[in-house]
């Protein structure tokens, strides 16, 4: 049904699933790292979509499927109306990789310590044909300008000569060389010091506002997600359990998991200390394999049905919630895949 996916949708994720199989001798366990995830990003209205969750919630696997680094088990991905789920390698390079670019967690392991950092920018520009030998210097310098650096500052430098914040900005500049419409940033600030962290998050905000680039911002840090993002998807063991604007989801979380997650963020404010206690998961694999809701054993508002049936996706006032608590309330909005 490609005719349904108009040019107006930049990225559409439909029922995306990744199953990993773990073998124990002859037996094997199927393990849903990402389990039927749906969401979309509209074209023409740049936004930052945060994907947040604990480690092992499937957020990195989801990002890698969007980038084409991991083959989905089932489900479809559409980019600008084209199905890109099984795009041949040549077309992927010629078109898709120009449009969608990654930024990884640790810039020092993404760049070779033996190569000068600017060589990555030049190579990307020349390999993708976005600039020729004559104007490549200007293009690289302009791109570095968008992240607050200049070619003069980094020319001839090796990764060890730059700070973590500078390196991460070079990594973002490298991703921007091809003029992409979507950046997928996987934990771009978690390796950085507190005093440098905000400079990267501000760069992402600036890219969206001044340069109209969409960003998928993957993080476990809800505070920076709230600060930078427009919408947020909360992931739990492969599911998206709540998706909506950051003001809605983090302001008044509805899903019990989002509520616990929000209250567990250590706020830098001594007046907001934790009071009540939390229940922790005993082992990750147990939760992945559980029938019914994967949050049932830790949920403070668990009901009988939660232990048997997988909760449905429910739309309440423009946000998606996957929880049995809200099945009684009338769903509003007929087009569940449209972004709010």
């Amino acid at each position, binding site marked *: 049904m490609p005719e349904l996916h108009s040019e107006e949708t930049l990225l559409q994720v439909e029922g995306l699933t990744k199953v990993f199989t773990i073998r124990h001798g002859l037996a094997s366990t199927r393990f849903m790292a990402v389990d039927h995830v749906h969401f979309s990003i509209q074209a023409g209205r740049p936004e930052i979509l945060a994907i947040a969750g604990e480690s092992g919630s499937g957020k990195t696997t989801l990002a890698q499927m969007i980038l084409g680094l991991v083959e989905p088990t089932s489900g479809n991905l559409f980019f600008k109306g084209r199905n890109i789920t099984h795009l041949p390698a040549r077309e992927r390079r010629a078109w898709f990789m120009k449009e969608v670019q990654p930024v990884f967690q640790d810039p020092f392991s993404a760049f070779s310590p033996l190569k000068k950092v600017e060589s990555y920018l030049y190579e990307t520009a020349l390999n993708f044909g976005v600039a020729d030998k004559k104007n490549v210097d200007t293009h690289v310098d302009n791109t570095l300008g968008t992240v607050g650096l200049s070619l003069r500052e980094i020319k001839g430098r090796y990764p060890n000569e730059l700070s973590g914040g500078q390196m991460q900005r070079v990594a973002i500049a490298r991703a921007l060389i091809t003029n992409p419409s979507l950046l997928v940033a996987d934990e771009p600030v978690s390796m950085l010091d507190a005093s440098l962290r905000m400079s990267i998050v501000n760069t992402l905000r600036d890219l969206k506002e001044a340069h109209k680039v969409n960003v998928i911002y993957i993080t*476990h840090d809800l505070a920076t997600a709230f600060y930078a993002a427009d919408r947020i998807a909360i992931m739990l063991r492969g599911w998206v359990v709540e998706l909506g604007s950051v003001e809605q989801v983090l302001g008044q979380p509805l899903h019990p998991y989002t509520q616990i997650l929000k209250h567990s963020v250590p706020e830098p404010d001594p007046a907001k200390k934790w009071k009540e206690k939390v229940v922790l998961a005993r082992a990750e694999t147990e939760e992945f394999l559980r029938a019914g809701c994967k949050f049932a054993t830790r949920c403070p508002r668990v009901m009988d049905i939660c232990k048997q049936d997988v909760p449905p996706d429910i739309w309440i006032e423009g946000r998606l919630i996957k929880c049995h608590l809200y099945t009684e309330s009338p769903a509003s909005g007929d087009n569940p895949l449209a972004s709010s």
Partner: protein
Amino acid sequence: MHTILETHDLKAYYISQAYGVRRTVKAVDGISLAIQENEVYGVAGESGCGKSTLLKVLLRMVTPPLTVVGGEVNYEVGEQMQNILTMSEVEFRDLRWKEISYLPQGSMHVLNPVKRIRDTFRDFIKAHTTLSTREMDTLARDYLHELGLPDKVIQSFPHQLSGGMRQRVTIALATILAPRVVLADEPTTALDVVVQRGVIQLLEEIRLRSKSTIVLVTHDMGVHANFSERIGVLYAGKLIEEADTQTIFNHPVHPYTQHLIRSLPKLDDKSIRLSIPGKPPALDNLPGGCSFHPRCPYAMEKCKIETPPLELIESGHRAACFLVSGQ
């Protein structure tokens, strides 16, 4: 309330020599602090500011190239203060783990993967006490039970437990002999927020139960706001500000602390937050005068030449900055 641990002008440098070039990294550079009994003292600062080295010296884990150049580390042993840096190894062995305990960074990876948790506990207790195997097992089981860890844990292998559970088992292991001082190095880093909260909950329980003093090193100001009672802020190996948690968060006086607090994102505020310009200095090549002056918006001529001393500016609040010492 009385002092249980104090340091006097403590200096510990990494001194190395390669091809005739001597390199000195001043990781702990003249730190004096006094930690009170049963308090949670937080040590804050960015990576490479000397937080972990300070903890190592407090635990006398001083092996070359780390060298203690000067100063004292005094613990209250019995009724009097004793300098652990001048003690003999035999004397110090009686204090380590029983009186002074340590949670290393990434401590969820320290459990032996081929041993059940029970055997790890037995090994640990056996090395420090003369209990029988049955008594050791009872002690371990009761302690884990008291801390609210599930009973099944004791017969599990480490790989059967989640990261957060392993972290909490390690914390239980390090505190089972009811130490008076627990030195915790980034105990919540690399954990998910919910697990992080569980770990802090556990440390608080241990503190109430064994009346321990906790020295908490972490770069996460959110954790400090939640758990620490007093905070010392380190910058480039020096203590630059120290006060109770309320004061550090609400009325910091050092420009570095002010910037650090102001840059923290909050869950109910989307207004623009700026990073501190520049980057932390390399500890082997510190700028002259105040180490923060190249990044400081209020830097004066004096700051480039002289190092500001840590001075008491009001009761319980110390800061090292010429702006506040008023000279």
